[in-house]
């Protein structure tokens, strides 16, 4: 393999004498100097010298042999090459050195027969060297050529195996695959694609990708494809429908990739097609299920909201939109009495009737849940159009529904909203329809109600007031005005009625009619009434200190709920004590109904109050229903005649004789029972004069004073 490893060279000892050995050593040294560097040999200089020493021995032996033979020189030439002394100058210098120095070093320079032997040895060495180098070169050439060819064969075999594998992958893949040229002409398709589309490969190869366009394809599909054709896009992935040869539709995930050549130019298109028809159908079914009510098969709330928001996201059919929010009347009763099964069947029947009666373009009937349905009318043409639909719906429900032998009559209440799409939102629309449905229910059911923004505003305001009232009471937004009760005989102020006001931060000063009713509904009237009572008593105490005996009583209204409050007596007592107010300076006003309609307990409370010395007055007397016989058993001190009777006593001459007669009778009655009488709503001097003539004790009204702040009222004391 490598020729340089030292080998023992046989020595012919006979020819080697001392001077000859010295000469050989000198020659070997010179030889090494001459040829080192002419070739690459992986030896140190000492190793080179060692090697050449052996070769020198061979040469000298042959030179001095009795029988001259040149074969040793031939061998030396071979060994030089084996030691990798293959450089071009190596032989040149070796031959030259042999001729110039070998005989001189051996001290045999003058022997002609040796000179001719040298020439022969030079020739033989050169021949051996040339032969060996030639063989070595041919061997190495052969070796490297075979190596390269082997490597290439190996690579080609690997390539063929690789190609075979890829072909198998292409042919056997479960996914459909096809290759087309840059114009879209189909070149190859695999079995899966043939199966998927129902065309044999021979037929597909005749076609162009564009011929597989489907009318339902999204525009983007072919837009992407154009970009791919122009090399602007390397791949795209879309969901696309294909028509099978038998006409059936196949839904696929299609990926088309552009394959470029070494220069980056488009070379092929590769399509991968995955059949997702089953998945697609399943998705459709799941989507249907997600968006429809399983009982009635109507669209459900989700679908309705989707359509509604689409209508508001620029997808509206027309500029206006309408909503019918429908709720069955009394459905719960049917459900509870006949069972849910009947209830469900009823809902199905109602759903069918709704669907039949309003079906049409731009109309969506949906079940919102329970017995609530909604009809969305896109592109409505005005209030009348939606009212017509509501009428038709109510009409469709008039015929009884037969279920399992039951004849069920159902009715529905409908809230209607119809307006322009712009300027409202889907949430507003829903909320207003919901409110309006509530109105329809509140107005008596089996009817529709049309959304009325003013009514809504009122209710919103009412709601706002009632919601903010508790906080307002804590924040001292209420205050009390006073209106005098004046003795008709001499205009002396006998008492003042406490009238609560609300200084609302948003709505301004509010009269009691705006909030007392609300307070009664919410129950806040009890703490509010107590607050007024306390304020009035506090004021009375101040007046008592200022005016002494001239101090008028304060008359405080007592609401029905207050009169039934078990804590009433204690509250009054503690408030009077708190301000050390003599009880006779307090009058409580109750309406007829509050007193007459009461059971024993409240009456007992009034008796106790009366017993304490507190005055009790019946307010607005004559407008309710009074049991006159009962009146005399009541702990009452005064009647206040309702202002409505004053109407007929306005003009001096044209007075209504009936009103005057009634007032006159009431006064007589009161006096008969030992009660004083105050007329409310006195506005003119003639009214006052007539009342005085009748014998009425006192009057209250604008003629004497409007309700005012305490300091304004004091001036009249």
């Amino acid at each position, binding site marked *: 393999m490598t020729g340089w490893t030292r080998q023992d060279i046989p020595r012919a000892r006979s020819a080697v004498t001392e001077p000859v050995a010295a000469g050989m050593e000198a020659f070997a040294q010179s030889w090494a100097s001459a040829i080192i560097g002419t070739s*690459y040999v992986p030896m140190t200089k000492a190793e080179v010298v060692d090697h050449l020493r052996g070769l020198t021995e061979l040469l000298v032996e042959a030179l001095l042999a009795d029988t001259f033979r040149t074969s040793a020189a031939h061998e030396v030439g071979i060994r030089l090459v084996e030691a990798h002394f293959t450089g071009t100058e190596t032989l040149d210098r070796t031959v030259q050195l042999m001729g110039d120095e070998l005989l001189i070093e051996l001290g045999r320079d003058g022997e002609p027969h040796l000179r001719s032997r040298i020439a022969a040895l030079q020739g033989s060495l050169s021949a051996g060297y040339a032969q060996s180098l030639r063989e070595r070169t041919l061997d190495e050439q052969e070796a490297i050529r075979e190596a390269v060819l082997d490597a290439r064969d190996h690579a080609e075999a690997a390539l063929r195996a690789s190609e075979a594998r890829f072909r198998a992958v292409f042919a056997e893949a479960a996914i459909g695959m096809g290759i087309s040229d840059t114009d879209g002409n189909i070149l190859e398709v695999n079995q899966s694609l043939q199966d998927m589309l129902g065309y044999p490969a021979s037929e597909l190869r005749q076609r162009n990708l564009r011929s597989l366009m489907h009318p339902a394809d999204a525009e983007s599909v072919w837009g992407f494809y154009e970009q791919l054709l122009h090399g602007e896009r390397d791949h795209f992935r879309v969901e696309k429908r294909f028509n099978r040869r038998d006409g059936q539709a196949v839904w696929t995930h299609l990926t088309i990739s552009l394959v470029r050549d070494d220069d980056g130019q488009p070379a092929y298109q590769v399509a991968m097609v995955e059949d997702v028809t089953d998945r697609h159908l399943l998705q459709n079914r799941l989507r249907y299920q997600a968006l429809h009510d399983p009982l009635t098969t109507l669209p459900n709330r989700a679908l309705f909201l989707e359509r509604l928001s689409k209508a508001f996201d620029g997808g509206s059919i027309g500029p206006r939109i309408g909503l019918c929010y429908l709720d069955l009347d009394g459905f719960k009763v049917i459900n509870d009495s006949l069972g849910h099964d009947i209830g469900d069947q009823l809902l199905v029947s109602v759903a069918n009737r709704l669907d039949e009666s309003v079906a049409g373009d731009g109309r969506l009937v949906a079940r919102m849940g329970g017995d609530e349905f909604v009809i969305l009318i896109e592109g409505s043409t005005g209030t009348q159009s939606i009212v017509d639909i509501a009428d038709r719906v109510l009409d469709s429900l008039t015929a009884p529904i037969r279920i399992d032998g039951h004849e069920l009559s159902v009715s529905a209440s409908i809230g209607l909203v119809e307006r322009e799409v712009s300027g409202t939102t889907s949430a507003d629309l829903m909320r207003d329809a919901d409110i309006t449905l509530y109105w329809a229910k509140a107005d008596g059911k089996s009817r529709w109600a049309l959304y009325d923004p003013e009514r809504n505003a009122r209710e919103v305001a009412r709601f706002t007031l009632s919601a903010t009232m508790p906080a307002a009471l804590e924040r001292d937004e209420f205050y009390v005005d006073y209106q005098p009760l004046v003795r008709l005989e001499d205009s002396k102020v006998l008492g003042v009625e406490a009238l609560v006001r609300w200084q609302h931060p948003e709505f301004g000063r509010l009269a009691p009619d705006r909030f007392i009713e609300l307070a009664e509904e919410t129950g806040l009237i009890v703490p509010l009434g107590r607050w007024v009572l306390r304020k009035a008593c506090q004021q009375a105490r101040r007046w008592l200190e200022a005016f002494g005996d001239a101090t008028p009583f304060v008359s405080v209204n007592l609401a029905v709920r207050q009169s039934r409050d078990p804590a009433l007596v204690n509250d009054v007592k503690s408030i009077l004590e708190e301000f050390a107010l003599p009880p006779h300076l307090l009058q409580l006003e109750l309406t007829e109904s509050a007193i007459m309609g009461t059971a024993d307990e409240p009456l007992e409370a009034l008796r106790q109050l009366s017993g304490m010395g507190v005055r009790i007055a019946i307010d607005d007397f004559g407008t309710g229903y009074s049991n006159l016989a009962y009146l005399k058993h009541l702990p009452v001190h005064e009647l206040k005649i309702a202002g409505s009777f004053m109407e007929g006593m306005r003009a001096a001459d044209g007075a209504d004789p009936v009103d005057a007669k009634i007032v006159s009778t009431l006064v007589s009655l009161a006096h008969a029972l030992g009660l004083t009488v105050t007329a409310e709503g006195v506005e003119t001097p003639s009214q006052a004069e007539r009342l005085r003539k009748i014998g009425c004790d006192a009057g209250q009204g604008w003629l004497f004073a409007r309700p005012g702040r305490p300091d304004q009222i004091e001036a009249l004391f």
Partner: protein
Amino acid sequence: MERPEIDLRSASVARIFDYYLGGAHNFAVDRELADAAAKLMPELPRMMHLHRRFLARAMGHVVEQGVTQFIDLGSGLPTPGGSAEVARRLDPSSRVVHVDIDPAVEAHGKRLLDAADSAVVVGDMCDPDAILDHPETRRLLDFSRPVGLLLVGVLDFVGYDVDLPAIIARYRDRVVPGSHIVLTNFSVDSHDEQYQRTEQLYRDHTIDFHPRSAAEVTDLLAGFELAEPGVVDVSLWRPEAVVEDLDEHPERSAVHVAVGRKP
């Protein structure tokens, strides 16, 4: 799949090296390019000799440290003075894995090398894990013992776009302490006109050449303890007499070399 190019019409670095070393494992196309390059830079063949001699000296040092298994990255053709031969001479039980990107090296090596103590792996030295995990590598070498990493005459052909420090670090991390690295890289002054023309000549034959500075070479050896005398010119790394004899112009050898040990 990666398909190595086998083309008899283009020159091969491995065969050019062989030619410079006096071998005949080469083709006309290799010799033409080698002769043309040598005309521009007459010291090129001598540089090849210097590489081989350094390889022998460095391997001698490494074997003295008790390391007898080697990975010769970018081995070239296993011709005279190659790592297999040197190793066998130093210690008959040595083992050498030859790695070269040229598939012909593998085919050639399989003919020349004894399968018991050497192997040839076709691969890219820039993918350390692929080389170290190659079945032939695992077959021949015992990674629980130190390994000698030989990178002689190969980094010159690794481009600057490759993160060479990271690659060498990966080799370093995967061998046990006591392992060695033997490394060379041309340091030719890139402004030298002859060099530029030579480089262009190689490039025309799709062979790119990448000299590196001493600092860059030192960076490559991060994590190794350098054997004396550190990063030096090839003619100055523990020279022997024969080298001095050959080396008439040490200043023109211009090859950085170093031997390092993983502590």
